[in-house]
């Protein structure tokens, strides 16, 4: 019966064919030992795919992994976290300061102020060695000029787009000082010399009263009687080539800056470069960057990957637009195919990108520091955590970031190196200080004292974390190690709450004036750690007699409906940060509006002052002193209960080591060098994978004490 035969033969044939394919697949041993090409590849894995391979336009971690390898910046951080030059050989930072000439005032000698008289007065003082003019290299007169600026008007109603109005302002003559170093207090120190002239200056004298009110505030900023313009001059490295052979020069730096600032490109990096006033090119290997005002955190932004101007300039974009049949007027860098096939100056050049499968990079033979040892770098995209783990054990990926509960098991596994380092960022519980129950600092302290952070670190992080007491990264010297964490003292917490007027009622719940101490604590779903903290906090507070409800919300809802609108009581969250000391957006009182980051509503004028001064301080030691003072202040105020900093454990195949040419020309195998960030990729250029392990598995414990 043919039908019957077909019906019963079909499954047999299909199964046979499918099982047969097994025999054409190599096992892991085949791959490792039998395939020498495998050793020349470094395979990493990522949960998500990259989005845009252009460092000026993307910020997600997968794109950043690729961009860090394909592009170089002017600077980056060295082992001890000080800045080191990459595409820049050296740099100098100084400032140009301006003082407005207001002829309605008088000098100490009684004569009315004119630009020439002011200049003469100052020159005399400088020649006689006045200490406030110690840093001044040159004093000049800047004639009055007319400035036309597009100012964004304050929108009349919220949600309406702001209009850009061109405004013409008349700026008076100014005295221009060139200082050898940046000094934010320069004018304060200068004032006595001028008999209080500076203090009496008022910007409204220079404002045209016919200006519409919406632009007045901004115009006042632009016409400020004193102005600091920090200047950075970078000396660029010669002989650096892009992957297509074109030589790198200062035009590429300027072009990168312009690309970021071009509104068509929708770059997320705009705020980092917004304070830049101008980028000038005194020569093919010199870049002069002038800032509009003091902004020390801006320096680090020049670690941004540099784009090739010759491939993305207007002419090139126009050509690409026409070739693709798109409108050249609307075509910007964001639309270019460059973002799928990038070209930079970095250690690796782009090879191939199969969306959601893998990204392949190949070694750049003409890298300015010398080519890498690995010939290829591959990123596999594996969205599932467990599968990523299995892939790593099987040897088809070379690096893996371990979860805390896996550390104990894997740390002693001789197949892998284990590198432990502190993360940049911290986890905290934030209290909405607009809610009446949280307005008393004693209550916030008590809530913090009820939580056993040591236990959280010991049992949830399995010891892989450290307590933190303040808003700065522990790896930096901004963090004050002398500041003590809150003690774990539920008894003391109960006492503090009693002091604040909360007494236990008949049901065992704390209440004050008939109202119970009850609130909701929220966090985002999908984060096990934060979930666990929330539950622990809830239990600890319940024991004190506080009614706490714990809620997890999906990220988008959590952010848009609750955090952005300031609609929450307490929240468990974390910050991930940069290495600078700028906490303006998180703790300054001007940032407490909706959609802003000071969503707990912290307002302390002293803190505000310190925050602003830190941003404006270019001298590292002075900055550190102020940061430490701010650290202590915030720790006393407890707008957050600062919990901990996670330690990450990075695993690597034990066959990966550093290789440098030894004195006799033969390869020398050395253990890794890590910078304080634990960035093991710091030395990636020297890494290599050997067929069998040549060094004992690396074990490191980086602690910040």
């Amino acid at each position, binding site marked *: 019966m043919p039908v019957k035969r077909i019906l019963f033969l079909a499954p047999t044939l299909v199964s046979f064919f499918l099982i047969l394919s097994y025999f054409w697949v190599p096992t892991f041993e085949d791959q490792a030992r039998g395939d020498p090409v495998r050793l020349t590849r470094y395979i990493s894995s990522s949960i998500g795919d990259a989005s845009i391979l252009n460092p000026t336009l993307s910020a997600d971690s997968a794109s950043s992994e690729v961009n860090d390898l394909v592009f170089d910046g002017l600077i980056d951080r060295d082992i001890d976290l000080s800045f080191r030059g990459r595409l820049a050989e050296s740099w100098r930072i100084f400032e140009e300061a301006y003082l407005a000439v207001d002829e309605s005032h008088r000098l100490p000698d009684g004569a009315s102020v004119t630009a020439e008289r002011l200049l003469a007065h100052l020159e005399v003082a400088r020649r006689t060695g006045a200490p406030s003019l110690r840093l001044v290299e040159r004093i000049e007169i800047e004639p009055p000029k007319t400035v036309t600026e597009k100012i964004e008007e304050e929108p009349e109603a919220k949600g309406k787009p702001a209009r850009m109005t061109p405004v013409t302002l008349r700026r008076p003559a100014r005295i221009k000082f060139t200082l050898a170093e940046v000094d934010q207090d320069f004018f304060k120190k200068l004032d006595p010399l001028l008999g209080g002239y500076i203090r009496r200056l008022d910007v409204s004298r220079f404002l045209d009263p016919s200006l519409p009110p919406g632009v007045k505030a901004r115009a006042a900023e632009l016409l400020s009687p004193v102005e600091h313009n920090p200047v950075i001059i970078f000396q660029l490295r010669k002989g650096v080539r892009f992957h297509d052979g074109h030589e790198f020069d200062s035009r590429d730096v300027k072009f990168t800056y312009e690309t970021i600032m071009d509104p068509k490109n929708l770059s997320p990096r705009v705020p980092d470069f917004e304070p830049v006033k101008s980028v000038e090119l005194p020569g093919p290997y010199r870049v002069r960057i002038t800032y509009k005002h003091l902004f020390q955190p801006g320096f680090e932004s020049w670690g941004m990957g540099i784009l090739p101007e010759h491939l993305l300039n207007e002419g090139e974009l126009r050509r690409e637009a026409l070739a693709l049949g798109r409108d050249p007027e609307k075509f910007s860098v964001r639309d270019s195919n460059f973002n799928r096939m990038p070209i930079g100056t970095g250690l690796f050049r782009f090879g191939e990108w199969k969306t959601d499968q893998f990204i392949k990079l190949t070694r750049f033979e003409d890298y300015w520091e010398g080519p890498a040892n690995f010939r290829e770098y591959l990123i596999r995209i594996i969205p599932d955590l*467990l599968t990523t783990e299995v892939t790593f054990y099987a040897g088809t990926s070379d690096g893996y970031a371990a979860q805390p*509960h896996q550390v104990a*098991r894997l740390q002693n596994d001789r197949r892998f190196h284990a590198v432990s380092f502190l993360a940049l960022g911290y986890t905290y519980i934030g209290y909405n200080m607009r809610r009446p129950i949280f307005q008393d600092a004693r209550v916030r302290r008590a809530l913090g004292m009820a939580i056993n952070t040591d236990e*959280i670190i010991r*049992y949830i992080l399995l010891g892989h974390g450290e307590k933190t007491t303040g808003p700065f990264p522990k790896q930096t010297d901004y963090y004050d190690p002398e500041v003590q964490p809150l003690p774990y003292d539920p008894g003391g917490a109960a006492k503090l709450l009693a002091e604040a007027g909360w007494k236990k009622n008949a049901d065992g719940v704390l209440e004050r004036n008939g109202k119970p101490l009850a609130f909701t604590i929220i966090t985002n*779903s999908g984060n096990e750690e934060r979930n*666990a903290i929330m*539950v622990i906090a809830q239990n600890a507070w319940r024991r004190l007699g506080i009614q706490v409800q714990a809620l*997890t919300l999906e990220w988008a809802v959590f952010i848009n409906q609750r955090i952005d609108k300031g609609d929450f009581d307490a929240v468990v969250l974390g910050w991930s940060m940069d290495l600078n000391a700028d906490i303006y957006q998180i703790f300054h009182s001007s940032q407490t509006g909706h959609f802003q980051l000071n969503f707990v509503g912290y307002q302390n004028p002293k803190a505000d002052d310190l925050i602003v001064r830190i941003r404006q301080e270019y001298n590292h030691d002075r900055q550190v002193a102020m940061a430490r003072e701010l650290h202590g202040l915030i720790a006393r105020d407890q707008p957050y209960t600062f919990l901990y900093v996670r330690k990450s454990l990075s695993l690597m195949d034990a066959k990966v080591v550093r290789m440098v040419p030894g004195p006799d020309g033969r390869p020398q195998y050395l253990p890794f060098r890590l910078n304080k960030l634990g960035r093991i990729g710091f030395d990636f250029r020297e890494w290599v994978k050997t067929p069998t392990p040549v060094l004992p598995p690396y074990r490191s414990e980086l602690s910040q004490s």
Partner: protein
Amino acid sequence: MAIEQVEVLSGIHGDSPSRIAWRIFLRNRVAVAGMVAVLVFFAVALTGLMLAKGEHPIFDPREIRLPDKLKPPLSVPNPEAVPLELRPRLGIYLLGTDELGRDVFARMLEGSFVSLAVGFVAVGIAVAIGLVLGGIAGYYGRVSIGVWRLRLTVDTLITGLIDVMLSFPSFFLILTVVAILRPSIWNIMIVIGLTSWEGTARFVRAEILSLREQEFVQAAAALGAAGPRVVVHHLIPNSVAPVLVSATLGVAGAILTESGLSFLGFGVPPPDATWGNILSDGKRYLFDAPWLTFIPGTAIFLLVLAFNLFGEGLREALNPKLRQG
């Protein structure tokens, strides 16, 4: 065929159709095993409701004991680190602890009730909607409504609605909707229910349509029985059988869907425990604490299997066409 149905109606053999079905069902031992298992799970769920839910349950699934995290089944609590009032009721961790030191046995008890509840409510909603819409479409289908100058029949509207629902990949749709709404156990139940009624509706409608044309209905109408009464007394009881079957299988499906949603991060939110989210939480510890997946995985497996076998048995027993000659 016709002879059998007349037999069924007039009860010549002296047995009601349900008694016949029951006897056939009992002969299928596998299905009976399924039914027994379902009853056992019901009992467990009720126990869970009594013992593990509420403010101060006998078996507390929410108590966190960090020093005792990830302990294997049948292990003893750490005497120094865990204070007396936090120790598990039976003195040992019967099924081990999870990543926060919570008693897995207590969580499984709590989860049994919640998982079954999710299944039943979801299916209840689906069946209710399906019966109503399918019934209306089947019986009143020819009635036309003038909507905006368009003459549409009720049938067209309802089958159009069914088409729309069927066009969306259902799991994908559930995912989209659950991702949009606030995560809560009710939302999940309602969404699963709202996306799985179309099968029942289509089936009920088709049954009614085909039954309408059959002789005995026309006979009843000829005897003077009025419209809706015919439906209620004759058509619906005959359609209930397949609906009952699909409901039983639907509960199994709903429990599996819930565990799938948990895996993707959209399941019932903590601290409520369902077997689905215990399983999906445990997957990260597959290598270090395999009992965290093995126990809920096996439990779901047995529960769903029980419902499936029970439902299959029902289907065979209730379908007169499957009776052996």
